[in-house]
């Protein structure tokens, strides 16, 4: 019996009924890793010894007749920008190639508290800047559905690991779509919680007002289980919300009767893949058949979202990445004096996309340009957020494509950064507004590539997204 392609909730059932052991499960997933990894390259670091030790602990607990947590003994992948004490955390950057965090990220700590089995650290675009993992300082991850294609990014190692059977679920991070887009490219569920729902403590900062950790899973039930584990206030992150965390599994109800779902015309952009457009309209029709009301809406500032995002995110990144100066941690390349040492270190160890964003950010923040670029973007951010606030006065959720294209070929877009940025049109507005969003698989193209739709909810209303996604998944 293969175990690596099951969901966490199925495996939990098999563990608690003693049909399988955690050790068997871990061995099965690592056997799959051995089989797939030389083709998919989802991981930067594998943590087999730690995984086996945890599995042993879980089996002892089960044999003593103790109750186990929903994610206990379940193998998962952690995106390599999430700090894991004692385990190398690189952000897929040469500058952190040998960085061993002295502490755990809170979200990871919460999984450890459930005795989650960590398979390894998943690949990403360097510092989470990218949409394909091609910006990784180490290697490109390949999409398990078609090895010539990208898995999406930046959480492409996480999505490929889950899709390829190399982990049951994964943690990713989403600054402008970095969970939802790779989830859609790999045919898995990806959830970006409301800004502040999950602590960012120990998540290596890219754009602090946009970054959020979230799950990539095989189904909506697993998504709720991981959210239950990782959400909640954390005194180590002053931007984490004190709002009470519901039991998200209570939202796994197959019923959308009476829900008002908006379909924003601006998200069906010129050049969108017709198969995606048709798939999302079919999903709308399905929701309508199930008793929801579909309303055509307009979010008029959508066309400004990419420009807004690609000023705000690089400005925050330029500031956050100042810390890589060759002094307190990370790589150092020597120089005659301090400035030369810092310049040598950053020039040699950062990749091209990271440097590009640092320069855009510092340009947008510099004297004489601050008002025209950065401040202007912050004001447009207000307008984008207001579009959503106005729309949600009459709606429960919004249905859109996750991406305008399915997984593209490796190398197809690397030479044109702007073209790559434009891929983020359906996902970045959600981060700018701080809202929760989920990407849900909805079939495949005629070439067998995964299709997906996105649902966007009101701030802190993750529950309605889970309910609608669960309904679609169970009744489609």
């Amino acid at each position, binding site marked *: 019996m293969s175990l690596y392609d099951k969901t966490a909730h199925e495996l939990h059932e098999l563990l608690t009924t003693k049909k399988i052991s955690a050790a068997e499960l871990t061995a099965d997933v690592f056997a799959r890793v051995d089989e797939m990894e030389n083709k998919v390259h989802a991981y930067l670091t594998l943590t087999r010894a730690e995984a086996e030790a945890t599995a042993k602990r879980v089996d002892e607990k089960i044999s003593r007749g103790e109750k186990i947590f929903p994610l206990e003994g379940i193998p998962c992948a952690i995106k390599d920008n999430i700090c894991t004490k004692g385990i190398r955390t690189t952000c897929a950057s040469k500058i952190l190639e*040998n*960085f*061993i965090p*002295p*502490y755990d990220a809170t979200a990871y700590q919460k999984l450890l508290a459930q005795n989650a089995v960590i398979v390894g650290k998943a690949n990403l675009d360097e510092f989470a800047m990218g949409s394909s993992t091609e910006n990784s300082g180490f290697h490109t991850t390949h999409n398990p559905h078609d090895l010539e294609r990208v898995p999406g990014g930046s959480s492409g190692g996480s999505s490929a690991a889950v899709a390829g059977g190399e982990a049951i679920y994964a943690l990713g991070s989403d600054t402008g779509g970095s969970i939802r887009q790779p989830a859609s490219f790999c045919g898995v569920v990806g959830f970006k919680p*409301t*800004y*502040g729902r999950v602590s960012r403590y120990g998540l290596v900062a890219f754009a602090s*007002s946009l970054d959020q950790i979230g799950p990539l899973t095989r189904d909506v039930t697993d998504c709720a289980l991981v959210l239950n584990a990782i959400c909640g206030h954390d*005194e180590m992150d002053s*931007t984490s*919300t004190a709002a009470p965390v519901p039991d998200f599994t209570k939202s796994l109800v197959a019923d959308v009767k009476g829900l008002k779902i908006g379909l924003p015309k601006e998200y069906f952009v010129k050049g969108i893949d017709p198969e995606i457009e048709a798939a999302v309209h079919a999903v709308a029709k399905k929701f309508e058949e199930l008793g929801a009301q579909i309303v055509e809406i307009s979010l008029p*500032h959508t*066309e*400004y979202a*990419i*420009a*807004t995002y*690609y*000023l705000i995110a690089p400005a925050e990144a*330029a500031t956050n990445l100042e810390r890589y100066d*060759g*002094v*307190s*941690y*990370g790589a*150092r390349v*020597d120089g005659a*004096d*301090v*400035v030369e*040492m810092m*310049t040598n270190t*950053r*020039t040699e160890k*950062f990749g091209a996309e990271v440097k*590009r964003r*640092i*320069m*855009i950010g*510092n*340009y947008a923040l*510099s004297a004489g340009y601050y008002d*025209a*670029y950065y401040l*202007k973007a*912050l*004001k*447009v*951010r*207000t*307008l984008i*957020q207001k579009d959503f606030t106005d729309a949600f006065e009459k709606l429960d959720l919004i249905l859109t494509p996750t991406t305008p294209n399915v997984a593209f070929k490796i190398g197809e877009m690397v030479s044109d*950064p*702007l073209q790559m*940025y434009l891929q983020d049109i359906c996902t970045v507005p959600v981060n*700018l507004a*701080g*809202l929760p969003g989920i990407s849900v698989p909805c079939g495949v193209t005629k070439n067998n590539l995964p299709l997906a739709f996105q649902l966007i909810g009101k*701030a802190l209303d993750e529950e309605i997204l889970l309910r609608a996604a669960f309904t679609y998944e169970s009744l489609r």
Partner: protein
Amino acid sequence: MKISEQDIKTVASLSRLRIREDEAQDVLFQLNKILTYVENLQALDTTNVEPTTYALPMQNVFRADKVKPSLDRELALSNAPLKEDGYFKVPRVLEV
């Protein structure tokens, strides 16, 4: 052209980055393309629009002023490229 070769040299220097001669043209081309694209924001009238830095309303967060254990010094230094006697070591900053 939004940005000149000289502007790029300045912003690179502010960013503690060096642009190699053989990549200067490509960097100039890509940054100009991106900065031209983001110009579309100028078409919007944002008079009387307040800037948003954080999407959710947030206030100052305070905690009790209590002494708690902090990161162990050796651990804090454990990733330092160069250290000596419990300090980070850097190239000479001041001329003697």
